[in-house]
């Protein structure tokens, strides 16, 4: 424990306040995390639940309901994980440890895919690659150019995998780059001086140092890929390609929630097993994560003749996963038919008056009162969830920090991070089951589910904010005669504001762009942009869906820009020589 944290713990040591804080934190976590999990468990323990489990695991439908989708889920999860760790790791290495040209631009672009929701990338995929499976009108750019892509590239496992990679490699990059950034020049020089070959240096020094980050990134990518609903829903369902998530969604939609829970429980167990493995790798790494210290000078490996080829490859990757899908969606929303981007452009899908000949008389999205409502509801959901999540995060984060290093703190932290391995779809389903009788179709339920889903991010951002503030800073303000409020307003908040704002934006964006969490919470009275876009796409109104996706993109990127989320503060390694 550092001296700073001991003195902090002593400051907070007036016995009553921490007790209230701890109890409050546990109560919040119980309500938001444990209750939904317990609900799923209890639902499966009933007679109907047992029957559902039997059906799903051993019944005649088991192959189609569980085993085949499970196989798809695992294959997609593994392929995505492997690809993301390799791509994200390579990119992180190129940006932080080599003299690759354009590495700053590439680093900034590499963080962007995280802002582009999976369902938008999936829609963009159909703009380019769709074949005539959904009718002549829906075919993509390639098919219109006469180069009809093969069926396996248009729908099913391959595009789902690629689309998830396009979204998730950014997470791997953002997790691996900071770890590489702490590997100092001298650590590597010390190894080189011994006469070790480049391979020996990589294997003996560099790899073990970043292994915990690689494991954590891999686990998170797997959990995200395995639980994704939107990508397989958009690119898999047209060819009856199912994963556990789409099967679970189907079960909930057809009124057999127990079967849904059974499938979701399977998803959670698989993800949890992987995250636990990764956590073990990380624990072994914990002791040295901080030992590398501050102010390290990094070696930049000279790439020689590979400088430009690698830069171009990296640039192609980040462009293909950011600018290309965004452009595809924008162009498609202006085209007469999805994918007919060389046709006569019109603003109809944005501004057009209702025309019975087009899309059953739907007006352009900017003229559509339902869309206006969805826009406001979505914005409000983002704002309220952001603020509430931060409030909950402050309570839980403070409690963890003040409890120090004991078992209680560890338990609380692990509970707070549990939502990472509960699929968004499951959280939505569980909250409907839990509080649906009271709150179904209410705005509050969306916010509560959102807070539960984003709790790990909120707690993390509170921890990051606390790390900005050395106890000495607060103490010196206290010694200068400031009261508790004065310290809070004069010192603590200004110092913490940046990280808290970043946490708020993260939650806000997740709410605005997430489909999985809200797909089941949606009611016509409570429209959310992502669900509206998904509905449009399922109804065959592709361009409307694309236009709405563009609106979501703009919203989430604007929020990040407003918070300075693309700046050097977010990726400090970009600022160095």
């Amino acid at each position, binding site marked *: 424990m550092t001296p700073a944290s001991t003195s902090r713990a002593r400051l907070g040591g007036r016995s009553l306040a921490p007790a209230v804080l701890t109890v409050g934190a546990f109560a919040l976590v119980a309500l938001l995390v444990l209750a939904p999990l317990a609900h799923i468990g209890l639902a499966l323990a009933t007679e109907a639940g047992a029957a559902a489990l039997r059906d799903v695991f051993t019944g005649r439908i088991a192959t189609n309901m569980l085993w085949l989708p499970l196989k798809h889920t695992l294959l997609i999860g593994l392929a995505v994980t492997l690809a993301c760790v390799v791509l994200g790791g390579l990119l992180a290495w190129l940006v932080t440890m080599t003299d690759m040209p354009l590495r700053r631009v590439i680093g900034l672009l590499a963080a962007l895919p995280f802002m582009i929701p999976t369902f938008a990338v999936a829609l963009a995929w159909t703009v380019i690659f769709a074949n005539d499976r959904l009718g002549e009108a829906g075919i993509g750019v390639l098919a219109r150019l006469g180069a009809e892509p093969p069926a396996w590239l248009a729908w099913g496992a391959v595009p789902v995998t690629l689309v998830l990679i396009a979204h998730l490699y950014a997470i791997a990059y953002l997790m691996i780059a900071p770890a590489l950034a702490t590997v*100092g020049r*001298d*650590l590597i*020089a*010390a*190894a*080189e*001086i*011994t*006469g*070790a*070959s480049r391979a*020996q240096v990589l294997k*003996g*020094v560099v790899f*073990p*140092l970043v292994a915990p980050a690689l494991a954590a990134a891999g686990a998170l990518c797997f959990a995200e890929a395995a639980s994704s609903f939107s990508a397989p829903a958009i690119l898999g369902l047209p060819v009856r390609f199912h994963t556990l998530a789409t099967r679970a969604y189907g079960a909930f939609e057809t009124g057999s929630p127990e079967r849904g829970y059974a499938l979701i429980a399977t998803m959670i167990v698989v993800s949890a097993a992987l995250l636990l493995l990764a956590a073990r790798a990380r624990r072994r*790494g914990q*002791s*040295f994560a*901080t*030992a*590398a*210290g501050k102010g*390290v000078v990094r070696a930049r490996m000279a790439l020689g003749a590979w400088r430009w080829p690698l830069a171009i490859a990296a640039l192609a990757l980040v462009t293909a996963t950011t600018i290309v899908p965004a452009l595809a969606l924008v162009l498609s929303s202006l085209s007469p038919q999805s994918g007919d981007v060389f046709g006569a452009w019109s603003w109809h899908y944005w501004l057009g008056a209702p025309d019975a000949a087009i899309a059953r008389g739907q007006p352009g999205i900017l003229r559509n009162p339902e869309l206006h409502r969805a826009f406001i509801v979505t914005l409000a959901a983002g704002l309220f969830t952001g603020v509430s999540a931060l409030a909950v995060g402050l309570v839980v984060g403070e409690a963890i920090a003040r409890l120090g290093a004991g078992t209680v703190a560890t338990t609380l932290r692990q509970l707070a991070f549990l939502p990472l391995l509960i699929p968004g779809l499951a959280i939505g389903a569980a909250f409907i089951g839990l509080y649906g009788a009271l709150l179904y179709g209410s705005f509050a339920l969306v916010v509560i589910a959102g807070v539960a889903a984003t709790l790990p991010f909120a707690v993390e951002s509170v921890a990051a904010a606390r790390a900005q503030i050395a106890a000495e800073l607060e103490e010196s303000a206290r010694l200068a005669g400031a009261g508790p409020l004065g310290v809070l307003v004069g010192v603590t908040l200004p110092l913490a504001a940046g990280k808290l704002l970043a946490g708020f934006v993260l939650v806000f964006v997740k709410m605005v762009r997430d489909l999985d969490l809200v797909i089941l919470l949606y009611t016509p009275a409570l429209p959310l942009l992502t669900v509206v876009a998904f509905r449009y796409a399922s109804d065959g109104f592709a361009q409307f869906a694309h236009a709405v996706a563009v609106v979501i993109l703009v919203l989430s990127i604007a929020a990040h820009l407003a918070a300075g989320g693309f700046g050097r503060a977010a990726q400090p390694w970009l600022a160095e020589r």
Partner: protein
Amino acid sequence: MSAAVRVRGMKRRFGRQVALGGVDVDVAPGSFCVLLGPSGCGKTTLLRLIAGLEAPDEGRIEIDGRCVVDASSGRTVPAGRRKLGMVFQGYALWPHKTAAENIDWPLRIAGLDRAARRARLAELAALLDLAPHLERYPGELSGGQQQRVAIARCLGPRPRLLLFDEPLSNLDVQLRAEMRLELLRLHGETGVTIVYVTHDQSEALALADHLVVLRDGRVEQAGVPSTLLTRPHTAFVAGFLGVPPANLLTAAHQDGAWRIGGKAFAVGCAAWGDGPVQVMIRPERLRLHERPAAGLLQAVVVEATPLGERTLARVEGAFGRATVLMPPWVGGSHGALAYLALPPTPDAVFAADGGRIT
């Protein structure tokens, strides 16, 4: 016998900044050579060039008579084949390996078998008093222990040459003094050639048998420490070396006499030229008086530190600043008036550009 390290015409620049502007250095086998200079003088760059961690723009380096890098022919022996060890400023211990593993890894790379590695580890642990700490990770070791692990790690493969980059700068004063003794003992016991970088002149004087003073990417003076102290070649060396360093006072030629702070000094030294010169006077040759008298310079005591048998005083006046090392001072301390007595002749005289005149 060829030099252990021979550096010739070494030049290195980073962008527009010249780190080394043509440096020659010779290190005799078995010597303890210290590269000394203020920060930014190029000493660490020179060390990293010797190690093979940087490439020179111009110049060549030989280690034990073998050319390891020559910018004109493009020849470079990679760092790992130069058979040297290096202790880094931040130690650069691999944080994911225990102390034992840190020491063992280079032995493994060197191709030693298991038994030989174990024996060597025990030897090194005894030499550096590390036995109780071998199973700990660097993060769990104190600064001094990390330091010793770093030294053991690079001694392991029995290098002919050891390089140290400001290894003591992260330790507290007491530990620093202890580690100095430890390093000298180690040098005596192993006979290895050491090149050691520091900006701390007292550390340099305590350790070096060969001292190289660097400034702005050039060698100011190199040689035996006592020679540098008694016969500095430049005003910079004179003012940089020594505990406390020598005084440099400006003397101007006025009305047919050399004057310091307006008072005539060293009458009849025509050979110093016309312009103002810098006069070196050792602190122990200055005296302070409580009362004014002819030929004394008025001064204000800034600080007077009693050292037992003597007092170290710093004074300011029209002559600038001076350090005085003298019998116990009973006059006033901070802010008191005092009168400075100069010796009849200076210890050395330097031109305005720093070159030595006499």
